[in-house]
């Protein structure tokens, strides 16, 4: 395979990974908000969120493998695992490695959620909010196409989508239907303890 083809594939897979990761984040926020509609039950949001997260890993793997085997950069496999170990664009590639490892941890803990418990899973899942911006900064810093109109447009759309989803989540508050009964119960339990 020619090295330019590898290079183009790396860039294409990187852009697709960013789009997929953005979709995963937005769907995750929507599922936390318990969004549903007629013909769109909540499990559809959750299922799509999970499937796209797994798909993101596949395309990230393609992005990483094609970058590592590209003979021009001589990245080596260690770069894919150990952050800031590359001699080529050390900082920006290191951010990419961190983002990938965070995402890997999130996916693995999600698959093992039944074993590790809800609290641990939730704690690790908060790292999503770190993983995504690190991935975006990695793309901006490393990417050859960063200032190309097409990738700039994709990046802007992704940033707007995630910022809008986060804003929606913050302003919407909790949609937990059990929140009020739980609060009432906890207050009653506290009153009973103090008696």
């Amino acid at each position, binding site marked *: 395979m020619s090295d330019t083809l590898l290079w183009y594939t790396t860039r294409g897979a990187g852009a697709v990974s960013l789009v997929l990761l953005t979709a995963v984040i937005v769907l995750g926020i929507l599922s936390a908000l318990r969004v549903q509609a007629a013909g769109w039950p909540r*499990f559809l949001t959750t299922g*799509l969120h999970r499937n796209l997260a797994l798909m993101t890993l596949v395309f990230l793997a393609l992005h990483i493998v094609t970058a590592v085997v590209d003979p021009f950069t001589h990245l080596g496999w260690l770069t894919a695992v150990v952050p800031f170990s590359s001699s080529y664009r050390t900082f920006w590639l290191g951010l990419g490695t961190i983002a990938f490892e965070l995402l890997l941890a999130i996916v693995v803990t999600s698959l093992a959620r039944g074993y590790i418990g809800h609290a641990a899973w939730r704690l690790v899942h908060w790292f999503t909010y770190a993983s995504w911006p690190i991935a975006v900064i990695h793309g901006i810093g490393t990417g050859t196409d960063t200032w*190309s109109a097409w990738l700039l447009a994709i990046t802007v759309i992704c940033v707007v989508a995630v910022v809008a989803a986060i804003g929606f989540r913050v302003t919407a508050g909790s949609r937990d239907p059990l929140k009020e009964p739980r609060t009432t119960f906890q207050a009653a339990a506290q009153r009973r303890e103090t008696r």
Partner: protein
Amino acid sequence: MKPNSTPLSKVSGCSQGRFSGRVNTGAMNGNTQDRIRARDAAFRLLNRLTTGAAVGALAGVGVFGAVSASTIPGITTTSQSASTTTSTSTSTGTSTSTGLGSSSTPVNSASSGSGVVVSGGT
């Protein structure tokens, strides 16, 4: 027998009320069938969306790769002489193939036209 105790013969053995026969089981079954149908439709939609996303993502790699290649193709220079063809294709700098890939010997057979690939060798 203790006072205020109920003899076992009076206990029904069932914690729930007796079936009155006035429950509309037809409506219940219809409602359940509707829910099953809605769930199946949602699963089908999930499968379609996942497949569509996978196909779209694969196509996206190709499309974005092609677009990136057309915007920033790297430095590609092609010089031709009667007997050798040199093609330098660079990601962001170097990767040079001379003549026939890894062959370091000059190519003997001359190629006409604008092609880069030359058959033959030594």
